């Protein structure tokens, strides 16, 4: 009897000591689309998070505590994202959530994080995540709205007035199409055609023939995956010599490889990370971007801008926890909102109570493809 009481006490002591050890860790929860259709987002994002959490811990952690990363794979499924968000909040009791690769999964969990009053930094693209502002929700990637503005500003410079639009029928293409249609008149641009294509379509010459018949000054394509490369090839195959604009959705070397010589002269807005080696050394981001690029490529191969969004999200959180000096959720939230002049991979972040993204249009560079490589237009 006595012995069993002793064992019980010892057991409890052990249990408490484990709990105590765990409580001293800062728990960062994340749910990403590491597999499935958006794995090209989630895969580099998770690798980035794991790599930098390890780095931070090796260097002694944050406010004297180690970071523990708790991850679930959503496969880009919003239903799963909701379940995992609940689990992170209720069961794992994380201090902050840094995650969600796609806009769909982000929008699905917003009501939950708002109710649980936990800071949440998303890595998804849609402008709807931060417009209107939600108290506990932040995001790091550039929005399609910014991309559309950047493209229109460049078109104004080149005196392009009429634009034939073709967009992918997926979430990214649709959302981008909406922004283009809404903003065009603001820049004095008329959209002469509004065509679309499916995710698995293999030929867009039929749609492009229709666009050509409307006599535009340029063709704009919003989409990602193989579609934009096929569109680019088809335009040149049809003998259409108009300027081509693409969105930031094609900002990877893969696009140039697939479209080949047809990609020459194509313009697109993209994050500075893509042209890290071409940035002047005076550019404020140069150091951050080069460091991230070197770290990532040393371990995982060619860097993509998507991993950069995860880097920004993690460090926004870490910096906020440092300034708050604790993991008190309300204080961390306030500190994220107070982020000023944070040098990230995506740009320079200046958040406020009315802007939970904090990137200006200058975070995008207008690029042109020349000789099979990127070149900076401005």
């Amino acid at each position, binding site marked *: 009897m006595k012995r069993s009481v002793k064992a019980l006490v010892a057991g409890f002591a052990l249990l408490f000591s484990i709990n105590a050890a765990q409580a001293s860790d800062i728990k960062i929860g994340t749910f990403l689309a590491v597999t499935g259709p958006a*794995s*090209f987002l989630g895969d580099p994002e998770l690798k980035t998070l794991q790599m930098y959490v390890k780095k931070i811990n090796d260097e002694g952690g944050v406010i004297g505590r180690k970071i523990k990363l708790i991850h679930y794979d959503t496969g880009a499924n919003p239903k799963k994202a909701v379940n995992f968000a609940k689990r992170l909040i209720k069961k794992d009791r994380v201090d902050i959530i840094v995650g969600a690769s796609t806009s769909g999964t982000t929008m699905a969990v917003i009501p939950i994080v708002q109710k649980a009053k936990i800071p949440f930094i998303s890595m998804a693209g849609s402008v709807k995540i931060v417009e209107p502002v939600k108290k506990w929700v932040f995001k790091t990637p550039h929005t399609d709205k910014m991309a559309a503005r950047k493209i229109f500003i460049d078109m104004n410079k080149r005196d392009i007035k009429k634009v034939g639009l073709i967009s992918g*029928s997926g979430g990214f293409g649709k959302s981008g199409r909406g922004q283009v249609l809404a903003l065009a008149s603001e820049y004095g641009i008329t959209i002469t055609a509004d*065509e*679309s*294509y*499916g995710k*698995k*379509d*293999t*030929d*867009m*010459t*039929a*749609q492009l*023939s*229709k666009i*050509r*018949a409307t006599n535009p000054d340029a063709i704009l394509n919003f989409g990602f*995956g*193989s579609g934009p*490369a*096929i569109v680019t090839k088809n335009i040149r*195959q*049809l*003998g259409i010599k108009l300027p081509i604009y693409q969105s930031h959705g094609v900002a990877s070397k*893969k696009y140039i*490889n*697939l479209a*080949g*010589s047809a990609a020459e002269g194509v313009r697109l807005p993209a994050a500075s990370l893509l042209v890290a080696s071409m940035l002047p050394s005076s550019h404020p981001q140069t150091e951050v971007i080069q460091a991230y690029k070197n770290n990532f490529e040393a371990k995982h191969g060619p860097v993509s801008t998507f991993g950069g969004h995860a880097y920004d999200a993690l460090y926004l959180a870490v910096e906020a926890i440092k300034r708050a000096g604790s993991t008190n959720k309300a204080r961390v939230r306030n500190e994220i909102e107070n982020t000023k002049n944070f040098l990230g991979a995506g740009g320079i972040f200046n958040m406020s109570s009315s802007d939970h993204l904090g990137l200006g249009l200058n975070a995008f560079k207008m690029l042109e493809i020349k000789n099979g490589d990127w070149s900076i237009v401005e």
Partner: protein
Amino acid sequence: MSDVLLQSLITGVTIGSAYALVGLGFAIIFNVSDVVNFAQGEFVMVGAMSAVSLLAVGVPFAVALFLALVIAVCIGLILEKFAIEPAKSATVVSTIIITIGASIFLRGLALLIWGKDFHSLPAFSGETPIHIGSATLTPQSMWVMGVTAVLVFLVHQFFNRTITGKALLACSANPIAASLIGIPVKRMMLFAYGLSALLGGAAGLLIAPIAFTSYDAGMMLGLKGFAAAILGGLGNPMGAVAGGVVLGVLESLGAGLISSGYKDAIAFIILLLVLFFKPQGFFGKAGEERV
């Protein structure tokens, strides 16, 4: 408007030719064994992806294409030998489920080997398009149509003019009788899978410079090829070819004239209508005797 129409036709026949080759593969295997081989699309992907890899390691272009076809045929033979043949006492439905499993397995394997990225093959003979009015025809489109026509002709001759071809047909009519008169039914099955894989692989090589390829490219082409085979009357090889071309043209006209959003819907609605009013397909014989 007429140039949109012409362009849609050109595009449609090109894509339709690829559907036709895949559909032909479906029809051949169905003919011999009454089984719909859902791994047919994977042959297309394996052909194209193998060629991409072979080119990447520096194999000359023509040799790479040839070796890619050999690899596709080997996959077809392996599938028959190690998955279909051991289950010979299984019902047709079970065998079809085996082929679905094989297709998922092959796709998974391709994901592990080649990753998730899209890959492209260079066009066979340049990319300078030929202008017909304001529509254009790329050399690769001509390759697709030309090679498809030749392959279809050869397959047709094979079934009608050679002993092996007739033996294959005999296996489908009555396997027991066929084996009684000395036709090696087992070997014929193996042959049918090899031939189907060859056609699928060829379709993959032809279409990859236009539509690119990735580990899951076979899924869509397989589905469209299946639709083509159904449209033409399952089990009628030439019907599958016609079905493929019709499906390709319908899709393309749908995208050009109405909206690309309804493209697939138009093609599949027509497929449903055909099945409803003429369940045996365009060219299938009603009440054809199957044992």
